[in-house]
């Protein structure tokens, strides 16, 4: 495509509307408009210039702000829809999601579930929306930033008459003293304008860098989105939960068996209204308020190679009281306090008892996480654990089974052997229940007591994407502040036809600019430029 050479000598790229250097109007259509459309300085944007190939069409689609706004609005509405009912990750795990939604919310819940709104934010179409915003951000920025940069760089001080006349703020004055121009120049400088002079014409400009704000913030957003995407790359993000009983040491998942952690103690504290007097009323109203969840943890590192089946040799790294808001950190990992279970059954004790006489022949204490197959009580008495069901229930076929490995409801099948009954007697013992499947026994396992322990749940987290996300966030903030707290203002003071012409432009906040011009021109013979759209209805015209 041919470049456009302006009468001022500057060569503009094809598609330029206003000469980059002097501002002369090229575009025939905009010639008769009373005011210029100053957005992007009338520079040659790809999206406004080409529309032939499929690539052009896609480019134009994504570079349109209108499309961008639609994408944002659609995402907004979709996001709102996801808050009508709780997302699946927040429903209690008591029943499958499929039933839960209908059970709790009737036909609406069912519909919600069937539309897939229960996992809306990870649905393919939501991700497509976000991706489209990302693509749009890249394309719209590229489409504008380069031509805008070139145009702002190429601008000359002296401007074409047609350009000045069609600025929103414009005025002319005759009989101006040379001294006035000097005064104005001085005042502009004290107002931190960068003033350039050519043939007695002035261009005062400030805040040009604010024009890059949107592009900087868009770059920040893109980096942020890339950071979010990296989460799906294996190894970047780890999210595991580790349940630890008091006194227990376990390997920290995903550390290649390098790190081990011990739960020395789990503590739950409530506020005490007698001690914390200030909170008395609030505690009374709420009943009970938790003050602290804490795991006293010790972190170990393995020394030497891992030999399967052998106990690793551990070296203490550090102790830390893991509380909410105070995770234990090491290398790229952090262990967070996320859940707990108080008083989980840990051991059960029984006495082998003669049912008739009540005489006992020794106690056994069963570790519910590690029951021994046989307990020898001496003198010919011993007890075998034939079966153990930590979380006992009867299966549909009537057989006893276990729901899980957690001893929520332990049950045993014991074989009790004694001198009187050397072949042993079988007894099924569950909480509050004893069944003697092979007829009446002489002996029983009398329940003696339990010991419990607290269990803590720690989330094991590694997130290598955080730095990228933080970087994106910082760049975004710099960009928005740059674009929002500064404005790009330009004031032209030029000699035309023996008069002084003043024109001014800002990308936003015209009141501020007008006030600044008033104070710059005060007590000079230069007239204050008029706002050419003040009289018209303002909302019909843009910047």
């Amino acid at each position, binding site marked *: 495509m041919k470049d456009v050479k302006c009468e001022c000598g500057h060569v503009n790229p094809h598609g330029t509307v206003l000469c980059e250097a002097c501002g002369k109007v090229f575009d025939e259509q905009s010639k008769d408009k009373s005011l210029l459309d100053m957005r992007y300085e009338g520079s040659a944007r790809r999206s406004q210039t080409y529309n032939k190939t499929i690539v052009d069409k896609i480019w134009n689609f994504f570079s349109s*702000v209108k499309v961008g*706004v639609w994408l944002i*609005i659609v995402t907004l509405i979709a996001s*709102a829809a996801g*808050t009508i009912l709780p997302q699946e990750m927040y429903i209690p795990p008591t029943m499958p999601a499929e039933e839960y939604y209908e059970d709790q919310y009737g036909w609406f819940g069912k519909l919600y579930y069937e539309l897939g709104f229960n996992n809306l934010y990870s649905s393919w179409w939501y991700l497509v929306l976000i991706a489209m915003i990302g693509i749009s951000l890249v394309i719209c920025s590229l489409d504008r930033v380069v031509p805008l940069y070139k145009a702002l760089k190429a601008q000359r001080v002296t401007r074409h008459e047609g350009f000045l006349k069609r600025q929103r703020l414009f005025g002319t004055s005759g009989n101006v003293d040379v001294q006035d121009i000097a005064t104005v120049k001085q005042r502009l400088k004290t107002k931190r304008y960068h003033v350039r002079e050519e043939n007695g014409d002035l261009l005062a400009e400030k805040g040009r860098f604010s024009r890059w704000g949107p592009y900087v913030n868009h770059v920040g957003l893109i980096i942020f989105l890339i950071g979010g995407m990296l989460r799906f790359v294996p190894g970047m993000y780890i999210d595991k939960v580790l349940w630890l009983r008091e006194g227990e040491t376990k390997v920290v998942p995903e550390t290649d068996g390098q790190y081990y952690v011990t739960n020395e103690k789990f503590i739950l504290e409530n506020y005490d209204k007698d001690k914390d007097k200030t909170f008395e009323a*609030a505690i009374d109203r709420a009943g009970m308020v938790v003050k602290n969840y804490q795991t006293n943890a010790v972190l170990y590192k393995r020394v030497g190679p891992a030999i399967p089946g052998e106990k690793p040799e551990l070296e203490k790294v550090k102790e830390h009281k893991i509380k909410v808001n105070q995770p234990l950190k090491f290398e790229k990992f952090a262990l967070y306090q996320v859940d707990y279970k108080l008083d989980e059954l840990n051991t059960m004790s029984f006495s082998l008892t003669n049912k008739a006489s009540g005489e006992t022949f020794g106690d056994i204490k069963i570790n519910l996480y590690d029951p021994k197959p046989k307990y020898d009580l001496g003198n010919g008495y011993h007890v075998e654990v034939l079966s153990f069901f930590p979380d006992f229930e009867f299966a549909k076929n009537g057989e006893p089974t276990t729901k899980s490995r957690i001893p929520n409801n332990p049950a045993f099948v014991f074989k009790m052997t004694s001198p009187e009954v050397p072949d042993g007697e079988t007894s099924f013992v569950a909480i509050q229940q004893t069944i003697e499947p092979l007829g009446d026994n002489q002996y029983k396992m009398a329940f003696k007591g339990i010991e419990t322990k607290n269990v803590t749940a720690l989330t094991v987290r590694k997130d290598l994407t955080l730095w990228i996300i933080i970087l994106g966030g910082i760049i975004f903030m710099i960009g928005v502040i740059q674009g929002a*707290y500064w404005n790009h203002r330009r004031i032209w003071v030029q000699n035309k036809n023996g008069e002084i012409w003043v024109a001014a432009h800002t990308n936003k906040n015209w009141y501020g600019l007008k006030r600044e011009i008033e104070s710059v021109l005060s007590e000079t013979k230069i007239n204050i430029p008029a706002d050419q759209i003040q009289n018209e209805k303002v909302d019909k015209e843009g910047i």
Partner: protein
Amino acid sequence: MVTISSNLLYIAFVLYLVATLFFGGAIKAKKDIEGKKGTNRWGKIAVFLTIIGFISQVGYFITRWIAAGHAPVSNLFEFTTFFGMCLVGAFIVIYYIYRTPLLGLFTMPVAILVIAYASMFPRDISPLIPALQSDWLHIHVTTAALGEAILAISFAAGLIYLVKVIDQSKASKRTFWLETVMFALVTTLGFVLVSTLFSSLDYKAEFNWVDKNDQAVTMEYTMPAITGPHEGELLTKGKFEPLVEMPALINAKKMNSVIWSFIGGFILYGLIRLILRKRISAALQPLVKNINLDFVDEISYRSVLIGFPVFTLGALIFAMIWAQIAWTRFWGWDPKEVWALITWLFYAAFLHLRLSKGWHGEKSAWLAVIGFVIIMFNLVAVNLVIAGLHSYAG
């Protein structure tokens, strides 16, 4: 300390009320105020009172902080009053940029309503649950509230714009929606008045009812029950029997408060209409006749420009930092988080629309109103209705 603190809040509240009257006086007294210049004596007094009130409220904030041992932004009452304080603070700042008392006349009543509304919630100093025990909580909540307050100034300016620009001589869609906004404000006042009325009468009625998990539970109403709970049985003698029974899924007590607020709102609105004999917006129109439309449009836009970065920082970035520390992940699609995102997306859309022609002026003013509705929705409905991790459980 706690008493000093509540007295300071009370003083601030009264000062705001008086200041509003003076702002009104400032507009009435000098008919020829031209936008930017000309704050007259009334206006100066009004601003002065506003600042004293603001200082007093800061005093409330600090003393309560000392008493509680943590920044008072941790329950609905505290957060909402803080939001009201930020609104006044943001107004003072914007006032010194643009110097128009008219903005005060529209902002202060909103701030007063917000604070009055806040006072309807339990005012006890509450202890912090473990997740809230973090400095990031305070940093996050305060910046977020400040950002929202600055954005709310754009609502006040937008309202001025609409009151001025909309032709009140005949009923139209625009008059209807603007009046709806006025009605919503009046209804908030209705809620405050009705709640105050019943709490001064010490109304209490206890119910046995069956919740959605078929559990028998009790619940105490503090307003006469119009909507009764599911299979509810009134225990307190001599109290009002519910007119209709709600299904277990709906929180009948909150529903009841909403209905009472509307009753209060309708009565109040009806009275106002009887006295004014025209729409509220029509009655307000003479007050704004000297303001320049361009000028309020710019205030509205500028507030969004100032508020958007603050909001982003507070409600998203600081929130994410805190969530990462407290909940192990910076983002979890909790309803409150999502609504912060929605607010943010909305104002992003607003800023982009302002780039195109035709979205200045009236349309932009409507957007400012919608933005405020979203903020209020996040503040009120998400806390009370859509319970999540953030719910202060009022």
